[in-house]
């Protein structure tokens, strides 16, 4: 029975067989970190504070995140190890409501912390530990070496928490954004490296089959 349940989970794990899921996640985090850094450090009259540049930047990021993985899957993954079309979720409401609740809770937490002039290094690092746990559940369960990634994320989050707030804040003109820039950069780099290694291993261990083999 357990073997059947494990078979039912294989298609989900297949999505990241080539590391593309992580590469996309890493790209997104680095994109957010870069935008936050630019907004925190650019002069007040700079275009980086304007809505048009923000929309263009986010739009480009979304387009790359949407079409990039699709292109890799179409030209590299599907010809090598096969095509999978996933089932649409039976209910889109539950994930949407859960996401909204989590987003509202995080926003409220940040707003309260800012009003009280709290140090945001610790909450940002706690977010990192949460991320490490969800990464362990999502990826490391199926690929053993990815436990090393979980350890790096968890350790990195603790190191950020241990740093003096002034040092972390100096990344973003001594504002609260410093901790988030640091944690986003950490996620971005770790996910990109881990996804890159998975992608390299995938290319190394798979060959595109002869046309008649499909």
């Amino acid at each position: 029975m357990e073997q059947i349940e494990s078979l039912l989970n294989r298609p989900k794990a297949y999505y990241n067989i080539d590391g593309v899921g992580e590469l996309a996640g890493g790209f997104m985090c680095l994109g957010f970190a870069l935008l936050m850094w630019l907004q925190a450090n650019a002069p007040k009259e700079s275009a980086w504070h304007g809505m048009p540049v923000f929309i263009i930047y986010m739009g480009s990021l979304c387009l790359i995140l949407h079409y990039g993985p699709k292109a890799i899957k179409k030209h590299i993954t599907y010809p090598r190890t096969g095509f999978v079309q996933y089932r649409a979720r039976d209910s889109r409401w539950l994930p949407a409501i859960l996401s909204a609740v989590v987003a509202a809770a995080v926003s409220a937490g940040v707003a309260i912390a800012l009003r009280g002039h709290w140090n945001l290094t610790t909450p940002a690092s706690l977010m990192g530990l949460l991320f490490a746990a969800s990464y362990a559940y999502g990826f490391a369960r199926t690929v053993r070496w990815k436990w090393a990634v979980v350890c790096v994320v968890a350790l990195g989050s603790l190191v950020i928490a241990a740093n003096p707030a002034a040092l972390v804040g100096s990344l973003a003109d001594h504002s609260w954004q410093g901790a988030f820039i640091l944690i986003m950069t950490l996620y971005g780099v770790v996910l990109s490296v881990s996804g890159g290694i998975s992608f390299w291993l995938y290319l190394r261990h798979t060959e595109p089959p002869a046309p008649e083999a499909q």
Partner: protein
Amino acid sequence: MNRQIQTIAELDRVIHEPGRLMLVALLFAVERSDFLYLQHETGMNKGTLSSHLSRLEEAGYVEVEKTYRGKVPQTLLRLTPAGRKAFEQYRRQLRGAL
């Protein structure tokens, strides 16, 4: 006859065969997939995989669609509603028997 033994005797034999069970379980979790994916995941050779898929198609559990990806022929496979129902029932029966 013992009820548990009777449940085992009533298991769907088309699905119960290990090779076909793997295929049905993999297809149950997706909307559809191609032949190459099933071959990669199960490690079966083309002949064995084709034979199992034909058996499942005969039983009305799998729908086969021949198409092209660019100029390359592609065989797409999907579990039919009857196949989904049969697999769900199979899981229920197996759980009950164990």
